[in-house]
């Protein structure tokens, strides 16, 4: 994973935090600089900051009494106007919005007050001038003001304070070094920040492979039968295991895929999943399973292959230390968390993992399991058909092409950042960077939606292209990204066709696509090698001459914003293009 570079600006001395962040050995590696504390506001003043742009992230960490003079007075129990408090929060929000342009990500720990400050005691949350109540309202207002801003993420500082307990605030440190927090707060903060950075680079986990016996349920199903399993009922362990299943189901709702790797007889284990009345997880919650007596590492390899994922997208959960150690050894890219022996801790342990953190959530995430199950149906149907062409023709494949709109930006950025295989350059960039890049280069960006008779795969592809700055008679493809779920359905050809037609509409002579190899995008190279493009080995570039028509596959219906402005299109258009080229 790449090293992240950033800057930490704060209203207190951030030296300790920055040192901890920079020297923490867990991935990803981070290098942050500490801004001159108390001078953070200079960042918002145009032209006063020597460091105009920060490469990856900016952390803006302030204490409320340093930002809001009214709140400082409130802490001294002086009368304060609520309007003034709100105005000061709004002013700060404006500064943050202005500062956010300086980095792709702006991380903003929310305001806290020292735990020893009891405010007005029992009255504190009840009356308008309460410290806790005012702070709650200020944080809510700040979040509301920043809602929808690209690349700004308010962080829950209170959680770090709770984790640090009594050591969270250290008055002596404050008086000696102008640092209010104990290291335990910073250690929690840096773990969350690193998880956010990893998520921004598409490194959040996508698949949870879980064991069955003593993990999803208590007991060995092969020994006691599904009727004898410990699950639910008036039993604290059984109820804890149900909670664990609920937690897994919750992650599935967030877009994680669930799979099973278990050493059992398949029919016996599946009967337990299907027939045990206390099971929270149903068979349809799992996207795949390997229930057999084979090596679990081999089973995970098969699952990953079936689901077309990378090994580094996998988390493996098993109660057996032996199995965990073996999978760690055999598959070092798979994340195998330590696992508690106490089953009542399973759910909390799962929900405390940071490896699922992502900075983007899309409608496609929630429907991911269904989409993979549809893909399984496709694979089964495909195996029964005579040929790929016939199968595709019978699948009623529809592609909707749309020029990039604000509403699609999160999913488009997510695809660019998470897709490893069908990705021409594997460049990564945040929503804000993508937006800025479009504005600065005049790039054309299309989102590609795919559906067929088996289901809707949603926004599954991104194509972006610019007029080439070196060869002005050419259009250059920059992003050529397709979700692994729809690879091989000729959507690749639709995207190339789109680029060729855009170049034609601009009267350009060639379409160029420079392939940047990674350890995962060989499939993309294979497509381009077989695409009919000329291959310039010396600069790793594929060339399609626009005077040569690129045919759309006849059986794909393409609709939407097409380059020549004709709008809606379908079979007829495909036929027309074919006829034109023939």
């Amino acid at each position, binding site marked *: 994973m790449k090293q992240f570079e950033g800057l930490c600006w704060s209203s207190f001395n951030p030296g300790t935090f920055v040192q901890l962040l920079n*020297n923490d050995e867990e991935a990803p590696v981070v290098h942050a600089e500490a801004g001159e504390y108390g001078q953070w506001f200079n960042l918002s003043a145009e032209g006063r900051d020597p460091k105009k742009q920060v490469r990856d992230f900016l952390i803006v960490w302030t204490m409320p009494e340093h930002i809001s003079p009214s709140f400082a007075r409130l802490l001294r129990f002086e009368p304060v106007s609520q309007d003034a408090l709100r105005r000061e929060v709004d002013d700060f929000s404006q500064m943050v919005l202005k500062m956010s342009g300086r980095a792709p990500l702006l991380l903003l720990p929310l305001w806290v007050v020292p735990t020893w400050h009891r405010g007005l005691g029992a009255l504190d949350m009840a009356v308008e001038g309460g410290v806790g109540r005012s702070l709650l309202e200020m944080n809510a207002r700040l979040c509301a003001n920043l809602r929808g801003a690209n690349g700004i993420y308010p962080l829950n500082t209170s959680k770090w304070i709770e984790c640090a307990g009594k050591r969270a605030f250290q008055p002596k440190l404050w008086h*000696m070094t102008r640092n209010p927090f104990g290291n335990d707060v910073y250690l929690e903060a840096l773990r969350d920040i690193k998880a956010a950075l990893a998520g921004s680079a598409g490194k959040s986990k996508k698949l949870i492979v879980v064991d069955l016996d003593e993990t999803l349920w208590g007991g060995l199903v092969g020994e006691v039968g599904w009727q004898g399993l410990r699950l639910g009922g008036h039993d604290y362990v059984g109820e804890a295991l149900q909670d664990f299943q609920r937690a897994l189901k919750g992650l599935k709702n967030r877009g994680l895929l669930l799979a099973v790797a278990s050493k059992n007889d398949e029919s016996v284990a599946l009967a337990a999943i299907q027939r045990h009345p206390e099971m929270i997880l149903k068979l349809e919650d799992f996207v795949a399973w390997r229930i057999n007596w084979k090596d679990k590492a081999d089973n995970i390899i098969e699952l990953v292959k079936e689901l077309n994922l990378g090994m580094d997208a996998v988390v493996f959960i098993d109660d057996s230390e032996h199995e965990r150690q073996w999978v760690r050894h055999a598959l070092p890219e798979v994340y195998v968390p330590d696992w508690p022996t106490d089953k009542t801790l399973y759910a909390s342990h799962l929900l405390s993992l940071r490896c699922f953190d992502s900075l983007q959530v899309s409608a496609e995430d929630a429907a991911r399991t269904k989409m993979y199950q549809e893909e399984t149906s496709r694979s089964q149907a495909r195996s029964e058909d005579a040929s790929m062409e016939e199968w595709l023709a019978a699948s009623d494949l529809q592609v909707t092409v749309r020029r990039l709109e604000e509403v699609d930006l999160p999913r488009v950025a997510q695809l660019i950042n998470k897709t490893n295989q069908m990705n021409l350059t594997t460049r990564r960039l945040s929503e804000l960077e993508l937006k800025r890049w479009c504005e600065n280069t005049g790039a054309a960006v299309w989102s590609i939606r795919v559906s067929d008779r088996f289901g809707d795969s949603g926004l599954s592809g991104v194509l972006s292209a610019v007029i080439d700055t070196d060869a002005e008679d050419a259009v250059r493809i920059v992003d050529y990204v397709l979700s692994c779920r729809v690879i091989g359905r000729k959507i690749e050809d639709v995207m190339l066709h789109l680029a060729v037609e855009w170049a034609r509409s601009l009267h350009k002579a060639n379409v160029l696509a420079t392939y940047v190899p990674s350890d995962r995008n060989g499939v993309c190279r294979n497509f381009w090698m077989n695409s009919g493009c000329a291959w310039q080995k010396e600069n790793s570039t594929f060339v399609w001459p626009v005077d040569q028509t690129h045919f759309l596959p006849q059986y794909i219906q393409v609709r939407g914003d097409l380059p020549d402005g004709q709008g809606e299109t379908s079979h007829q258009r495909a036929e027309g293009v074919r006829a034109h080229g023939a």
Partner: protein
Amino acid sequence: MNEKVDVVAAIYGGIDDINKQLPAAKRLTKDPAAPISAADLDSLNMINFLLAVEERLQLDSNLEIDLGAAVSSSGEVPFKNVAELVAYIRQNSKSSDPL
């Protein structure tokens, strides 16, 4: 001071804490002869280290000492290594437990 108080353990705990802030090449070693001076730790790190030791002594042994007072305005401290810090603590601390 109660001789049973494990001052060395508190110092080594403080070393664990401060090492999290330091690059690998600059980390302190847990050894009585390990140097502790302004040359090894900048003033921020020195204060963080000494306050971590101070907190451990208080929490683990009810031993009160103001190690912050040992740091001069220029960041200098009156000990050069772990052994000298142990001696400094033994001379300047008081136990809040009735002996």
